[in-house]
């Protein structure tokens, strides 16, 4: 056939172990598994397998295994099978290619080229089991100086601040792109951990009103779900200008995902496509951003910090500085390896810059302008473990946003097909038979475990450095050394090479 694209995986069924119970048939929304005409024998068609491992995980006899399907092409380092398949797909449909999750391309991951320091002899390391080890961070606009005439009393009027007990927050994922159960799990975990979750541009479902003290509510270009109570029932308001996975473009939630619940939360008709425009049509310049920030603050009686989220693009440091000067209390920079529910493949894989470089450049720029201490800087765009977070804070972040990691804790296997709405783990889907698979009571505990474990690790690493407060890690680039990086990369990161 002219449009042949080899399948990606093969489902291997061990006939000796399979008892034909049909569990896999019921679990697979991609319809890989089916009963033979006899109604008794389970067979499978691997063509639609995405390697989400749901069937493998739930098979009671362990009879299933997923294998990569290999169909060799002529070797060609330039015309790889992937490009040929993508061309074939576009020739079939005439459409933009879509992808989900962060880019899988092998771009440099600077976290893996940065090493951390520890104390020896001249400066004792601190045992976090014996000594207090502080991970509390305070986000929001800070005055330049304290007003205090005498010890113990201050007359400083502080703008609204957010106290988080761990420097890890949950990044924006809207109800619509993920299920209510998934969002609820994050919200419940945020409450227990003393941190925040983020509504994305999906509005706030009434089931989560009681958790709104832990919510960052987004105001994005589609303005979905934005109304007075939404803004007032929050801990923080975030203006989303851009997203690391798809800088410069908007979003598209297909109508089939817009069920009655999603339509209510977003305040759009049921079944209609929710299209967020590429720009905010009331922000065509930095002065417009200033006005939006100002109106949001007016509307909420200056009680909510306003954050501005931008994608890490080439000129990110100047843009971050502009946002600070336009009145943003918190600046979020989202790196190009950041995840997404759906993005045009070409954009996701080619637009933007890594968070490490963007964060280092923006932090330094704000310092050069003498305004770093008055605003908060949050980094996003793929943190895989606690040491990534420690490195980001040492580069200059006040806190980090994570999204993929807690999703993996809830069951996600990074199959990268969120955009199909068939998530077998009940995360990136609105189908009731799938979403009910995710039990928030269980899922939120797993997320708490994950963040608690990371926070323990952060404390352990800080203790090793002889630091007992995250405040003293922030921007402490002497704690970092590059390994295998060029002079230019070291210069931008503002760190020395290992051995120096």
């Amino acid at each position, binding site marked *: 056939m002219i449009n042949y694209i080899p399948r990606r995986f093969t489902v291997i069924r061990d006939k000796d172990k399979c008892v034909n119970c049909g569990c896999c048939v019921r679990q697979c929304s991609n319809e890989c598994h089916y009963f033979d005409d006899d109604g008794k024998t389970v067979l499978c068609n691997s063509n639609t397998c995405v390697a989400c491992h749901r069937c493998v995980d739930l098979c009671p006899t362990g009879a299933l295994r997923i294998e990569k399907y290999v169909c060799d092409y002529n070797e060609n380092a330039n015309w790889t099978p992937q490009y040929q398949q993508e061309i074939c797909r576009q020739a079939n449909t005439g459409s933009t290619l879509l992808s989900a999750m962060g880019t899988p391309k092998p771009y440099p991951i600077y976290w893996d080229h940065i090493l951390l320091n520890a104390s020896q002899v001249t400066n004792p390391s601190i045992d976090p089991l014996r000594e207090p080890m502080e991970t509390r961070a305070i986000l929001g606009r*800070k005055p330049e100086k*304290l007003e205090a005439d005498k010890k113990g009393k*201050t007359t400083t009027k*502080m703008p609204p601040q957010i106290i988080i007990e761990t420097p890890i927050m949950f990044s924006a994922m809207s109800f619509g792109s993920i299920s209510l159960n998934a969002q609820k799990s994050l919200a419940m975990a945020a409450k227990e951990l003393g941190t925040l979750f983020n509504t994305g541009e999906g509005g706030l479902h009434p089931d989560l009103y009681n958790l709104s003290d832990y919510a960052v509510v987004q105001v994005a270009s589609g303005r979905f779900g934005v109304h007075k109570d939404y803004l007032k029932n929050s801990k923080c308001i975030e203006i989303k200008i851009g997203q690391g996975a798809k800088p410069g473009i908007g979003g598209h939630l297909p109508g089939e995902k817009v069920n009655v619940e999603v339509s209510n939360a977003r305040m759009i008709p049921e079944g209609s496509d929710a299209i967020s425009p590429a720009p905010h049509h009331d922000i065509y310049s930095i002065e417009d951003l200033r006005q939006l920030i100002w109106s949001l603050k007016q509307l909420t009686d200056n009680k909510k910090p306003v954050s501005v989220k931008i994608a890490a693009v080439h000129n990110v440091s100047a843009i971050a500085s502009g946002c600070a000067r336009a009145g943003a209390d918190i600046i979020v920079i989202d790196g190009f390896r950041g995840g997404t529910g759906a993005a045009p493949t070409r954009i996701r894989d080619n637009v933007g810059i890594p968070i490490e470089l963007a964060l280092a450049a923006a932090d330094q720029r704000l*310092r050069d302008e003498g305004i770093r*201490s008055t605003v908060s800087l949050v980094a996003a765009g793929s943190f895989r473990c606690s040491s990534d977070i420690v490195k980001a804070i040492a580069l200059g972040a006040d806190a980090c946003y994570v999204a993929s990691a807690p999703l993996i804790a809830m069951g996600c296997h990074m199959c990268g097909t969120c955009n199909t709405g068939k998530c077998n783990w009940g995360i990136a889907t609105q189908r009731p038979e799938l979403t009910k698979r995710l039990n928030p009571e269980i899922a939120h505990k797993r997320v708490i475990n994950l963040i608690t474990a990371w926070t323990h690790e952060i404390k352990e690493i800080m203790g090793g450095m002889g*630091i007992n407060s995250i405040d003293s890690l922030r921007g402490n680039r002497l704690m970092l050394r590059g390994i295998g990086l060029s002079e230019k990369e070291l210069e931008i990161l503002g760190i020395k090479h290992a051995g120096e």
Partner: protein
Amino acid sequence: MLKEGQIRIPSGCAIAAIIDKKGNKINGSEIIKSISLMHDRSNGLGGGFAAYGIYPDHKDENAFHVFYDNVEARKTCEEFLFKHFNIDVAERIPTKPVPSIDLGPDIWRYFGKANRVRMKTSRLDEDEYVAQCVTKVNNSIEGAYIFSSGKNMGCFKAVGYPEDVGEFYMLDRYEAYLWTAHGRFPTNTPGWWGGAHPFNILDWSIVHNGEISSYDTNRRYIEQFGYICTMQTDTEVITYLFDHLLRHHNLPIEVAADVLTAPEWDEIDRMPEDKKEYFTTLRAIYSGALVNGPFSVILGSNKGLLAINDRLKLRSLTAAIKGDRAYFASEESAIRIICPDPDKVWSVSGAEPVFIPLEIEEEVDE
């Protein structure tokens, strides 16, 4: 080998200080006796003293102590100083040869007032003018280093053990109401005279024991405000933090001490509401100025003496009171050798700064 300023050199140390609250004078031999008892806490690669009240005849003028590596540096620096200040006296600081101290830089001192015309043109207040002039010399004149610039006070330092440095500068000929002393144990240094302590800017002088782990956080915080940490030492950054908080933010000295050694959140959360608000606000605004890791610091000034210790009490610091005098030292023995029978002796606890104010204001000429 790179010298201080080109590379960051961690070091351990001994510190000592004496203050007479009423402003009565103490001879330099006292502080030498105290610091020399802690000989083993230094390794001969740096020692120094700061003395307050030693130049009563020039009390309204800035006293600049300068190291010169060569004649050329002196000419350039003097040209600068004579242009920016009305210099009354220019002289070599008297020293006597001490076998253990190698031939070092040429050491000069100048007394002078800021040139009022230049100061007014620059639209800076006197302190800022002096501070900027000192920074200018130290950053741009190769081979010249102003290591003391306050009024009616001076720093004396060299590469050597502190007791030898005291003998070298003949400190038994100086009388001061406040002395601080420092013996250095750098882990790696080519031994540069400018790298010895105390570190001074204007009337502030700092002696410090420890290696702070928050160094780069503090450096990057303070460099936002025009400071340049050329020495890359803890002492330098701590001095600049104090200078910034006291002079630019007008904070009382105890509040500045709270910024550097703020209590832990566990403790703050249990405080009464007003104190809780005070510390929460303070920590939120000055998170970059919190000093972390082991340290004990003594800040000398014409207003008094401040001693602070790290939050976990990782470094030793003992205090004692006898009559009008207060004593501080890394080890209690170094106090007892000059004050065998103190009224009160205690160990300075972490996050609990001790401030001994000078109770008499120096006479001010109207």
